[in-house]
């Protein structure tokens, strides 16, 4: 008797707790009415701007927008891992160089922003185009540029590396230039502008500007760059050193010990104690220094249950000047929205990065890029630390090509 009573009570208790638990999500997953929910993954900086755009959207469409905040570095992996399981978001913030990996993983959908496309910088749309298809709505560009201490070397841009070094020495700075190598890890990203001035792109671009999977930094230009690294590394002038990581780099520049540095807009806030001017990176090898341009945007999940809503939100609420301005104000990077970019170019720092980006090339988004960094960074570190440039560089190319071949 008591046992039956117990089971009966148990069923009732379970039912009550269950009802209590499910009351919360009942109105989110309902089949009709105002039930649609759009999940957007974002990093902390973009959250308030997206929140503002989402409020207008929620009001007009009756849908709810849920923002999930994540570390920017975690977004790519989490998105790739969770979209196939159906747990992923409808939209995520992301960088354009993930595109190849996301396409290979089959987790992104194409988008069509229609007439709004004319409002965006062409390079930002190109960056998110893969095999002729647009995969994300861009909102910002970023690139590294030459940042100089105006108290030491004025605002004028040096044309060549040697000229820059000379000015730095004349100014009496402890170091003419400081460049982050991420410590012993190596930082081919920051170094890329100087590498391209030797005519050694990481992958060969075809006539339309798309990257092929043919490694472009082999042969004489690549070795010239490697030799230059060696000459300026620990075995030579010592201007480049693997003792410099991001924090040390910014500290040396901010304390006035270095006259020049190569950094991106994200580091400007670390240079509070000095007056800075931003210019394009000088040429070390004779050709124009073309740093990597990165583009950030909003990707649409291929497994989204609310594809219509998500597209509506992207095209009609985020591709607007107001939303793009809010994104810029939340985190001042070069806007991908053309009129906004012109407007903010009145700020000399932004204008400097904009000028640098106009010399730049989009970072390759082909999936092969994922295999490059480790080999590339390691070879640059070894050469800066005094390894023989020609053999180190060419064996790096051989290993890289071997790895790409599978």
């Amino acid at each position: 008797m008591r046992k039956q009573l117990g089971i009966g009570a148990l069923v009732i208790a379970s039912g009550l707790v269950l009802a209590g638990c499910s009351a919360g999500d009942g109105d989110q997953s309902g089949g009709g009415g105002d039930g649609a929910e759009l999940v957007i993954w974002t990093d902390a900086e973009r959250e308030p701007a997206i929140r503002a755009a989402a409020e207008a959207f929620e009001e007009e469409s009756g849908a709810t927008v849920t923002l999930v905040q994540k570390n920017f570095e975690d977004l790519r992996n989490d998105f790739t891992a969770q979209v196939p399981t159906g747990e992923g978001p409808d939209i995520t913030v992301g960088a354009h160089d993930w595109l190849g990996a996301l396409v290979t993983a089959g987790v992104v959908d194409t988008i069509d922003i229609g007439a709004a496309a004319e409002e965006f910088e062409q390079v930002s749309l190109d960056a998110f185009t893969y095999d002729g298809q647009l995969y994300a709505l861009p909102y910002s560009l970023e690139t590294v540029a030459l940042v100089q201490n105006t108290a030491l070397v004025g605002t004028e841009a040096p044309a060549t590396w040697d000229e820059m070094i000379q000015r730095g020495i004349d100014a009496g700075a402890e170091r003419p230039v400081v460049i982050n190598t991420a410590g012993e890890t190596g930082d081919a990203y920051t170094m890329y502008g100087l590498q391209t001035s030797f005519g050694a792109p990481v992958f060969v671009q075809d006539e339309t500007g798309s990257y092929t999977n043919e490694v472009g930094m082999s042969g004489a230009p690549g070795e010239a760059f490697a030799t230059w690294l060696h000459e300026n590394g620990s075995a030579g002038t010592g201007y480049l050193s693997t003792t410099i990581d991001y924090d040390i780099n910014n500290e040396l520049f901010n304390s006035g010990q270095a006259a020049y540095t190569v950094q991106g807009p994200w580091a400007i806030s670390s240079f509070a104690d000095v007056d800075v001017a931003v210019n394009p990176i000088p040429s070390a090898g004779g050709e124009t220094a073309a740093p990597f341009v990165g583009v950030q945007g909003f990707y649409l999940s291929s497994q989204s249950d609310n594809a219509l809503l998500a597209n509506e939100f992207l095209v009609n609420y985020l591709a607007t000047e107001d939303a793009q301005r809010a994104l810029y104000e939340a985190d001042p990077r070069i806007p991908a929205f053309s009129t906004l970019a012109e407007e903010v170019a009145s700020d000399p720092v932004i204008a400097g990065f904009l000028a640098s980006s106009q010399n730049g090339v989009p970072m390759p988004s082909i999936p092969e890029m994922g295999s490059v960094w480790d080999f590339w960074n390691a070879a640059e570190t070894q050469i800066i630390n005094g390894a023989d440039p020609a053999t180190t560089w060419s064996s790096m190319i051989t290993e890289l090509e071997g790895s790409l071949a599978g």
Partner: protein
Amino acid sequence: MTTTERAAARRERRPGTARGFSWGFVVKLLLMGIVNAFGLTVILSAYRAESWVVLGIMVALLVLVDVIYFTKRALPLKYLAPGLAFLFVFQLFTLGYTGYVAFTNYGSGHSGSMQQAVDAAFIQDEQRVPDSPAYPLTVVERAGELGFAIVVDDEVRAGTALEPLAEIDGAGTGASGAPTEVPGFTVIERAQVLTDPALQEQVVALRVPFSDDPEDGSIRTREGSTGVLYTSSLEWDEDARTITDTETGLVYAADDRGSFVADDGTRLATGWYVNVGFENFVRAFTDAKFAAPLLQVTLWTFAFSILTVLSSFGLGLLFALIFNDPRIRSRKLIRTLFILPYAFPAFMSALLWRGMLNSEFGVVNDLFFFGADINWLGDPILAKLAILWVNLWLSYPYWFLVCTGALQSLSGETLEAAKVDGAGPFRRFRSIILPLLLVSTAPLAIASFAFNFNNFTIIYMLTEGGPSIPGAPNGIGSTDILISAIYAISGVAGGTADYGLASALSIIVFVVIGVISAIAFRQTRKLEEIQ
């Protein structure tokens, strides 16, 4: 006596229990109610997500738990069940799942199901017809069949997936320019389309042919208010598992590696993950790319964990012996100070040491090596020494603590007797103190070995595995131990991901540690026989 009578008799024998009611029972009922509610929620969501394995396991677990707590048969299990449940959820499930992944090629380019790969192929292939205008569009319905009505040059055309667009007489358009009235069709309000996920899915998937000629393409809508012409040249044959490109004539067949490959070797970008058997385990040893670096990493892992245990045990024991001497003043204070490196979070210490070991700005070269330019973290051998040194600094306080405790519990009489017998300090240490000490510390040493075998923190925070081994894939470096190499291979930090291989390696590491620990624990039992 019937069962009820027997139960009633038993109840009467127990004092303090009101008839058929006790507060303990109410608490149990409430707790079990919560447990059951939780279980049912998981079962329901597993049912909704169609994951039958989880559902089956949860049903079994829930029934088992209820049986355990609502019958009188399994008294010991009432105490053991919570622990067993946690063991299952946190250990066995993780282990099982890792094992499952180890037999697949889950990683870059193989991260979803085959159906998702097919979807992706169609997404990537479907192209907007060049110069196609965006037609104002309304979603319509006829006899349960969804369709689109669009406005082309001021005339309304409507159609469904099977019927190409045809001109509709007497239709009306609204302020937005989209059709609002389409005779023969029911207009579905856009608000309804946007708020009904099921309907949305159908609308997104719907393609309405523009005319009888397939070359003209089909109308699709992305946001429900405009339609644009798209063409796709792919055809999916589910039975033959092939995707045919009607434009180039290439037939992409599903291979057993989770890719669509054509006869000429070209493959579609997106693959899916498949079971690859023992390949990952074999590849760790035979693939020339991985074998040499992984061998080096394995040797260093053993060297690192053995040397760390020996050195920190030795140093900790030495200090413990010294500071156990009653002649030393303010022993308590000194002992407390010794604990400091241990009390500080290891990753912070490692980061601090990384800064101090910087060859140019670090305090180590400046103070102890006369400002010499020693690249502690950039040279393969020096970096290994640096890791051993920092780990010694981090872990000897632990051994100091443990050995101090063990020393103080040694019987003073035995030592006194040895002294009387004329044994010198060294003899007393070698023959009495050390053997007795090892009885209590040897199992800890084994645990410490196992811990350091997987000591990811120090490696990652101090050197990130670097400096790189030239030519090694995924940036595997000369101070990488197995667990940090696995992290690099898994691609969690970026680069190409190979979860299958990473899982296979984790399992190998698990087996290695398991076997070593088992052997070592067996050996320590011999030590206990001394007592």
